[in-house]
């Protein structure tokens, strides 16, 4: 009917694009998923498909005090990082969002710097400074380092949430007698909680995933899980790592699924753009 629409490319005409994009998606996903069946092999070598199914390498992980200690260090470090980075980042994001001043731009830029500086530079710098402060091989040092990497993510996600939020609601609360503190916690925070939670999630992943800084400032008993994985990867490719990887992959599938379900269940508003 309308000649403009008729000229649109049909799905069939761009089948090649579907095939190409499909292959790229396979490239992204298959390497991750292939590790899962391999982790259940009973043999010393990684085989696909595994000759039989066995939980041998999971037992070797859970039975090893070294691995369990490393996992425990990682969990504690990530937990404390979330606990410190989320309030600090949220406070900074809120302050910078509400107070428009020529300082906000500079402060915001300074707080995003940790994203920009190559992590190797932070790692050797921290090694030097933490050695003087006695923070090497301590949980405090690890949490401090991970917190600084996590803060920008919290700030970015919370700022995005604040932009979608109608700030006049807080003003209404305050004009009705609530002070800023009460207004924030009872009116604003409940409405931006999803952004704060995603910031916290980012903080968790940042800490849990970090290797390079941990390589420098946490050794021996205070090694994190990823640090220990990295050192054992250099020695040998053991199916124990496949088992650990599978558990970490299961975690990230849960995260991706949670995000997807939340997005799909959100009603689409008119004119909304992703």
């Amino acid at each position, binding site marked *: 009917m309308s000649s403009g629409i008729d000229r649109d490319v049909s799905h069939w005409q761009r089948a090649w694009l579907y095939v190409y994009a499909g292959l790229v*998606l396979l490239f992204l996903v298959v390497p991750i998923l292939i590790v899962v069946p391999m982790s259940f092999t009973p043999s010393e070598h990684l085989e696909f498909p595994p000759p039989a199914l066995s939980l041998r390498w999971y037992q070797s992980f859970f039975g090893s005090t070294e691995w369990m200690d490393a996992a425990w260090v990682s969990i504690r470090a990530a937990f404390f990082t979330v606990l410190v980075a989320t309030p600090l980042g949220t406070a900074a994001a809120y302050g910078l969002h509400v107070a428009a001043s020529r300082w906000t731009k500079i402060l915001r830029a300074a707080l995003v710097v*940790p994203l920009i500086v190559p992590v*190797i*530079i932070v790692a050797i710098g921290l090694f030097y400074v933490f050695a003087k402060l006695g923070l090497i091989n301590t949980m405090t040092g690890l949490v401090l380092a991970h917190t600084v990497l996590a803060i920008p993510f919290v700030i*970015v996600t919370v700022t995005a949430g604040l932009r979608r939020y109608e700030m006049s609601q807080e003003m209404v609360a305050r004009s009705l007698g609530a002070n800023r503190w009460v207004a924030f916690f009872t009116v604003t925070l409940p409405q931006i909680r999803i952004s704060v939670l995603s910031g916290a999630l980012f903080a968790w992943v940042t800490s849990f995933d970090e290797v390079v800084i941990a390589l420098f400032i946490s050794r021996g008993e205070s090694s994190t899980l990823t640090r220990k994985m990295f050192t054992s990867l250099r020695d040998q490719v053991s199916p124990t790592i496949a088992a650990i990887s599978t558990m970490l992959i299961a975690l990230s599938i849960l995260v991706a699924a949670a995000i997807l379900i939340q997005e799909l269940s959100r009603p689409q508003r008119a004119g909304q753009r992703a």
Partner: protein
Amino acid sequence: MTTSVGVAVGAAALASDARGERRRLLLLSSPAMLVVALVIFIPVGWLFWLSFFDQTGATTANYVRLIDNSAYYKIFQTTFLLSAIVTLVTILLGYPLAYLLSQLSRRAALIGLALVLLPFWTSLLVRTYAWLVLLQRNGLVNTALIKLGLIDQPLALVYNFTGAVIGMVHIMLPFLVLPLYASMKSIDPLLPRAAMSLGASPRAAFWTVFAPLTLPGLFAGSLLVFIYCLGFYIVPQVLGGGRVNMVAMKILENATTYFNWGAASALGVVLLVVTLGIFYVIGRFLPAERLSAEPR
């Protein structure tokens, strides 16, 4: 009606003490600033100092050595070449994917995006490990290629430059696809349609209307990929098997093996200056908030 009056009165009352309040609000960012100062600014400043001063006083020896020593020249060359190749491959793979996702229905696009997000949320080490397993001599890729009769001998796909490129592309692809998808979504779909209704072929409409509009996003995204690659350590270290020497590895080696802090910090300063320089260029195309990517 009454609400809007209330808002107006409240806003007026707030405006009076706005200035003092604003200062107090900015102070809310001070705990975060303190951590950034302690963990980023002091150590990096310290490195600057170390690169210019030794026990005897001010020196440029650390930088002169970078220029004189051809080994350092080679390392910078490898780093830039590897980063450029990874960026190029990432664009070739990522652009069509982002384009297709931007054209699909919301539901289909979200499923595609979830598949992009899955590796994004998966540990870097897990992915490095996965490629190590897949690409090794008797790994799945070689086995499959031999069974298909495409090759007779297993290819050397890992512990070399190729392995490093494959692993790094896999890590960096979501960093390109996600912002590119966002920038493509913000292009008005009526524009290419208008071009077609005026007689342009779909191909011409894509290349002359749509593609040029994606250039700022593509430029920013690929520069982002490029600078993250410059600082990579873990992936080229494991998948390169010691054959691919990046600046980050040399920094680490100088600091931990030779305890040569002068050399390590001079290399660090050069890497930082190059990185910040490129970020300055990106900043002209994208606001800092959009650079929400994980440093590796």
